[in-house]
Every structure is written in structure tokens, then in C-alpha cells.
């Protein structure tokens, strides 16, 4: 989940499980909406309803402007420079 200069940082405690990131990712990659076709898995503990996204192998940060980070309404996914 890195390209040469950027990486994604997940603030898990901010995740509310809306799945916007997954739907955004599959849309950018495939022009359709399907969480299973995204590079993000959202783990969900059904008893507590705590969720957090995990970026999968193969994510290329959309070539520099990750749609998931742009779309997330709650500040869960942020883009950082690699140091």
C-alpha cells in the first residue's frame, strides 16, 4: 500500500463502518460498486459494531490521489508522505 512517496494511514478509531472507502475503491478501479472488488477490507466486530479498514496488497493509492481518503466522511484514511 505505498507508492514511491505516499502511504495511507488508518485512524481506526474514527471508522464508522459506512463502507464508502470500499465502494469508492471498486468504482475507481472497475467503474462499479462492490466492496469485494476493492483493495480494502473492513473488519467488523458485530457484537460491538466496531469496524476498521485494512488496506490490501495491490493498492497503488490510485496513482497519487487515493479516492478512499478523499471520500471517507470521518477522517479515517489519511494520506501521508513516506519519510
Amino acid at each position, binding site marked *: 500500500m505505498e507508492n514511491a512517496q505516499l502511504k495511507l494511514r488508518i485512524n481506526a478509531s474514527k471508522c464508522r*463502518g459506512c463502507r464508502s472507502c470500499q465502494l*469508492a475503491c471498486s468504482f475507481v478501479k472497475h467503474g462499479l460498486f462492490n466492496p469485494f472488488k476493492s483493495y480494502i477490507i*473492513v473488519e467488523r466486530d458485530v457484537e460491538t459494531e466496531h469496524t476498521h479498514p485494512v488496506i490490501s496488497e495491490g493498492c497503488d493509492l490510485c496513482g497519487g490521489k487515493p479516492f478512499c481518503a478523499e471520500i471517507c466522511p*470521518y477522517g479515517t484514511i489519511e494520506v501521508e508522505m513516506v519519510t
Partner: protein
Amino acid sequence: MDETVESVFTVDLSTGDFKKQEVDSKTVRKFLGGSGVGWKIAADLLEPGIDPLSPENLIIINPGILVGTLTPGTPKTTVITKFPTIATEDNKHFIGSCTSGGRYFGLGLKMAGCHHLVVTGKADSPVYLRVTDGNVEVVDASELWGRGIEEVTNYLVNREGSLAGVMAIGKAGEKLVHLALTIVDKTNSLGRGGLGAVMGSKNLKAIVAKGTGDIKVAKPKEFIDISNELRARVLEWPRREHWIKLGLAAGWSDFKFTQYPGKWPRDKWDELYGEKTRMETVEEVIPCTSCMLSCRLKWKLKGGEFDGEIGFGSPFSKSATSGMLLDIEDYRKMIHLVALGNRDVGIDFYSITRLIDFVTTMYQRGELTKEDTGGMELKRDYETYLDLFNKTVNREGFGDVLADGWMGLRQKSGLNPQDYWYSGICKGVDFIYDARASNFHPLMMTFFTRPRPHHGGSHTRTNSPEKPLEVHRNQVERWGIPKDAVERIFTPTTYSGKFNVGRYTKYMEDMMRVNNALGICVIFTYQALLFGDDAARLYSAATGNNMTAGELAKAGERIHNLSKLVNVREGFTRKEDKVPELWLRPMETPEGKLETMDYYKTKVMAREDFERILDDYYEERGWDIEKGIPTRETLQMLGLEEYLNRL
């Protein structure tokens, strides 16, 4: 690309048979898709006069057309059925639609390729339905029967995967209590008026939906541009920061006035049930599928008898109003009842608590006796309320009477529901709000004009008190309705005030049908974040079926007329579209008298005013004003001639 083809998954629980069919493109275009097509299915397949708790009743589940498309404010699923609520003294039942948001259920249906799930028949023993890609299985649920909704939901999600959506009933539905509803994904309630009992009558404990398929739109680039534009608009909404912290716990500053039941002084109510208690109790705020607002709540009670109890849903306004009505000063006790209702038994909190308020008070007044209650003493204390609550869920003793709702109570005890002192009763259902506190805005009118007496997703800016007329005019104009209609709406009258509530309500109801078909959430129309022209652009890009806002509104009118026709077939006329008697009596409060006033509070509404507003409503609809039913000409104009002969 044409995305107007829709699939219907039909399950007959009597035989276990499943079939998958397609709805032709022409029908989808005519009725928009989603619950619009759902109403056509209801009109074509639901036989008139059937018992709602018989195998012949249908449950028609329709996820919104825009569910799962990343568009803010589009998570909703609409269910159509004949409700077991006794609506009239001669035991008529309405056929209605109910809607809810959800986090996984609608998404699961769409990903499974299911646009309409139709359930008919009755299983021999408890079952649940498992909806997966292109298929529905009927699965034995004998181990789940009797268990609480949250327990069953968690079990099914753990079994099926984290994207599985669940709609489930609790004990109240299993016992065919007319007040039983379902809970979707643990967080959203669905089906006031007895959808839970309809499922129970079919031995249907739950539906789990999960798919792996794609959700597509016809014009992806155009669609995402519109979606992103809406997204930016929501981010700029000045109230968003407050809303995402509190969800449906926000808004106390308005509710303190618009939902006031008038028993305690407002200061006392504020102290016991106001924002401070809300802030103490909210743990997390949870969004529906891809929503940017977050309305659903996870709460935790602190201190008191129920210390540490966690719940999901929306407990605050309902517990505050019923808490005052029941004279319960500890808000945690009321929220505990909400938890019992949502988490365990699946019962409508509003109706059960108001029925309990009514009967316990009438008992204290001597209007109900031990003879009526089967020997039970009805005290005005929490222990009695809890006892009545549980007895109603289980249909035990006097609870068996309450389980048949307001008209059941009337039939068995002689008490008149119209004597109840809060909210207002129509077609056997108590409304969420009371017009004397909230004023007579169009949502309040839909309560008695709609076939199913619930607001049903019609909210507009008129839900907020005394907003400038230009705000309302702007929202109406963006529905794309003809200019002369806009002028008629905003022509002042002596009976309706600065705008004509009757004519407004007609178009508001039509737009409600559009919103429900698309899956658009009421918060977005209530707060004017998503307008009629936005809906048209989204619909056109999603389906490839280009429609203007006005054409969309016209399709909404068609759907509404169809929903009315099936109810005319059940015997409903203007006689049942009655303003609740309560709204014509003042509410005596410690802060003075409250009477039903027009939206801008220029006058107290009189009976004749309501009658004239209703006349205008029917006239605007092109219906027979005396009978309150669609005319032949209107049905022909809307392309519904094929249904004329079936009336």
C-alpha cells in the same frame, strides 16, 4: 448501458419454491423501479380482502435504486404489505409501505442481484431466508425462534460474513402482536403497524442478505460527478459538525417545543431528558451505507438500575415524550424500554407506551376496572408499565387486548382511542407527533391522507417551524412540478395561511414515492441537502432512463395513485382520511394552552379549515372530492387504466 432491468426473487414459504423473474424495462420505466415497481407487484398479486396474517399476504421488499452507489443519503429499503393494524371499526386493514435505512441489508440485497424480494405463503415451522447471489434458501430457524433480535442478528452475521444484512423479528412478531415491527441491522426499525406480525404469521424469523455481485450505474462518469457534487454540499452544511457528533440525539432545541406533551413544565423536561442526558448516554454515532451524516446511535446507560446497558437505534425523542406521559423521571428507565423493544422483542415503542399511558390512567380514573383487565391492577408506576409491556409482547392477560392496538382496545374494552390525550389517532395508529405542539405542517397532513398513517419518508423543510416562505418555495420549485401548481400552493388562503397545505401535501406525497423508490433518506429532504432535480439527475445517470424532475414527480404521482387504488379496493374512502379529534382540542400545559395552528402561527385551525384543506388536496390530486378516491380521468392520465376494471 441500460440499467433498468430489475430482478424479482419470489419465495413461497408454503412450498419452499423459489423463482427468479425479470421485470421488463417498460414497467420499470413507468414505475421508476424500486418500491415503485413494488407497488405494481402489490397491485397485481395481492388479492383484495385477505387477512393480513394469512399465508396469502405478501411481503414485498425493495432496496432503493441508489442503494450501494456511494451517493450520500441513499440507504433506504421500502417494504410493502397488508398491515394487521385494525384500521376501522369494521376491521379494515390498509396496504402500505414502510421504509428504513440500513447498513448492510439493502446493500446485501442489491449485491445479490435482488431488486424485489417477494415472500408469500407460510412455512410449517420457523425458518429464515438466506438471500445470496441469484438465490433464496429457506433455512430451518427452530433454534432461533424465541430469541432476541440482536442475538439472532449477531448469530447470522457471524455465520455469513461481515457484509451480511439482517432483518429480524422478536417475540412480539412471533406472537402476532399488531404493534410488532422488524429491526434492520440492529440499528433501524422497520414496519410500525405490524410488519413484525406479518413475518411471524409466516413463521419467518429473519431474512439475511449477502451478495458478492456488482452494483452498476448506466453512466458511471456522470453519476460520480453528481454524487461528488452532493458530497461537497453535505460537507458544507453548517450543521454537519454537530450532527455527526450526536446523530438523532441532535435537535433537542427544536423537539423541546415541537414534541412537547404538555404535562410537565419544559424546564423540568429539559433537566430530566434534555441534551445533557443525551450527551451522557451516546457512545457512538453510526451511519447507514455510505452516509456522511450518521444518525443511528449506540448508547450506554450510566448508573441506576440498568447501569452499563448498551443499545442500538434512536432512543431519545421517543423516551423523552413517553417518559413525560408516564411520569417517569429517570430517563434511563425509559431508554431501557427502548432497548427491550429494539434489541429483544421488536415492538413499536411509541404505540406500546402510549397505550400503557392510556389504560393505566383510565384505570386510575375508574373508566377501566379489574373486570376489564382480567384482575390486573393498573398502577401508575414503572413496575406496572414493565409488566404490561411484557404481557403485551407475550399476549398474556390484559396484554392480549393491548396487542391488538387502539381499535382492539376499543372493541374489547369500550374505551375510545380518540379520547387519548397525545399525538392523535387515525386508521388505528397513533402518530409520532402531535399537531398542537408541532403546528399543522404538511407532514402532519400526510398522517391522515396516506393509506398507512405514518409519515413514511415525506419530510421537507416544512418540518422545521416557521422557516421563510422562500425556502419552501425553492424546495417545491426544484421538484419540477408545473408552475401553475407552484402558484396554487403558495397562494394564501384564510383556512390554510400563507401556503396551501393541502396542495403542498399532494406533491410532497408524490415526491415521497420517488424518494422511497430511489432510497433517499428523509434527513436529506428534511434538511434540503438533496433536491428533486438532484434526484432526477441521479436517477437518469444511474439507470440510463433520462427523466426530468417533473417527469420523476409525475411517476411519483402514478405510484401514489396505485397505492391508493389498492386501498380503495379494501374499502378506504374519504371517511377514513379524518383529522384526529385530538387536534381540535387544546392541550392544557403548565405553560398555557396549546392549540393546533397553521405553520406560521397566524390562526388556530378549526374543523372547517381542515375540511377545506382536504378538499383542496383531493382537487389537486384530481380525485373525487366527496369520496376521496381517484377518478377515472386521473387514472387514465397516469396510464393506470388497466386497474380501473379491478376496482
